[in-house]
């Protein structure tokens, strides 16, 4: 590219965000806006977000899955929905539970997930792979070499996370070691109900 027209960088940023099908990373913006420092680009992004805040604008610049992407503002959702004619499908409870386990425990195998949920998950796993929310990370080096699953980039996008570190922290399991051990005898109900005759 030799002689480039004189265009405001904000206009270029808007165009890039508009044409991209996936979140645009900072690196890509730097590459394309050649010669601008990271600080300048951060400033541009802030400027763009500022403009989006105006009431006559319908879009929002969000940071998700390691990049930036344009989306419609939540308050215009009713009209977009009407325009599209359909509501987006929600994931089932089973799918969400499975996804939560994979997100926090990855890499994890199917039997390990099933042990936690107490049910078989073939159908759910299929749905999640189909929707590209999870991906195959490899195989576990053990008998049977089961497939290891993890979350995908689409997972981050789907839930609006910048990266996996944004997953809400899991509630810690309170240690039950001492408490539970001493309580054996307090289970009075056992005797009663257990000996009906």
């Amino acid at each position, binding site marked *: 590219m030799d002689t480039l027209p004189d265009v405001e960088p904000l206009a270029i940023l808007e165009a890039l965000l508009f044409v991209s099908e996936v979140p645009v990373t900072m690196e890509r913006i730097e590459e394309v806006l050649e010669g601008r420092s990271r600080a300048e680009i951060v400033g541009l992004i802030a400027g763009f977000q500022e403009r989006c805040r105006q009431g006559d604008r319908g879009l929002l610049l969000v940071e998700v899955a390691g990049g930036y992407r344009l989306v419609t503002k939540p308050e215009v959702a009713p009209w977009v929905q009407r325009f599209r004619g359909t509501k*987006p499908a929600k994931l089932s409870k089973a799918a969400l*539970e499975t996804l939560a386990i994979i*997100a926090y425990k990855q890499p994890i195998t199917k039997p390990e997930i099933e042990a936690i949920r107490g049910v078989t998950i073939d159908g759910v796993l299929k749905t999640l792979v189909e929707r590209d929310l999870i991906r*195959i990370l490899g195989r576990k080096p053990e008998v049977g070499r089961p497939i290891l699953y993890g979350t995908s980039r689409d997972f981050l996008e789907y839930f*609006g996370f910048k990266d996996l570190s944004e997953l809400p922290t899991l509630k810690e*399991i309170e240690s039950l070691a001492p408490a*539970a*051990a001493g309580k054996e005898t307090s289970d*009075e109900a056992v005797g009663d109900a257990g000996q009906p005759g």
Partner: protein
Amino acid sequence: MTYRVRLEMFEGPLDLLLYLIQVNEIDIYDIPIAKITEEYLACLATMQELDLAVAGEFLVIAATLIQIKSRMLIPAEELEGEDLPQEDPRRELVERLLEYRRFKEAALTLDELESRQQLLYARLGELSPPVAEGPLQVTLSELLRAFAAIVQRAPQATALEIAPEAITVSERMVMVIDRLALESPLPFTALFDVAGTRVMLIATFLALLELLRRGLVRARQSEPEGEIMVYRAIEGSGGDDGHPA
């Protein structure tokens, strides 16, 4: 038990157990096993009438409960080994319940995030971004699904040997183009004659793939799980009709 429990409400046996613990306001660290077992089995009894396919999973936990109950019935005096601290028979189950509960809660959080994100609409991909430079971008899942589809389409190799007198892919290509010339877009499923033979379905599908590859038709899905619509690409396009192997 005054409450009515329907098992479809639960995501599995652990979910049901957590529910019983909650409605009975039981301390999860000190579960009255006999009472819970009784209630759990009562719930299973209602399930048996429903003959659910998942019954097996619920029965596994039922067996665990019964086993714990019987272990707890052994009087403490019979296990005299004083120096060894007695392991609570319920412990493993409690740990499983706690772990499951953590993820159940995490799933609720994801559910909220999902709802919030679903209010934000992004642009769908471009119709057909050409450009074939730079690194590849294909996920393993995509590759696998491509092959899974093939496997499903052709469980026995012979199914794909299109008999000379029977349907050919090129015939089907013409058929698809003709249909789309009359009406476009058409739902993906409308292109398949339900009464057709398997060979016919396969030929139609291959024809569709080939037309897509050649850019003579387009398929769009406006959202995940949504109906796939097939569009005629620009004008009549008759000229180059199929010549597959």
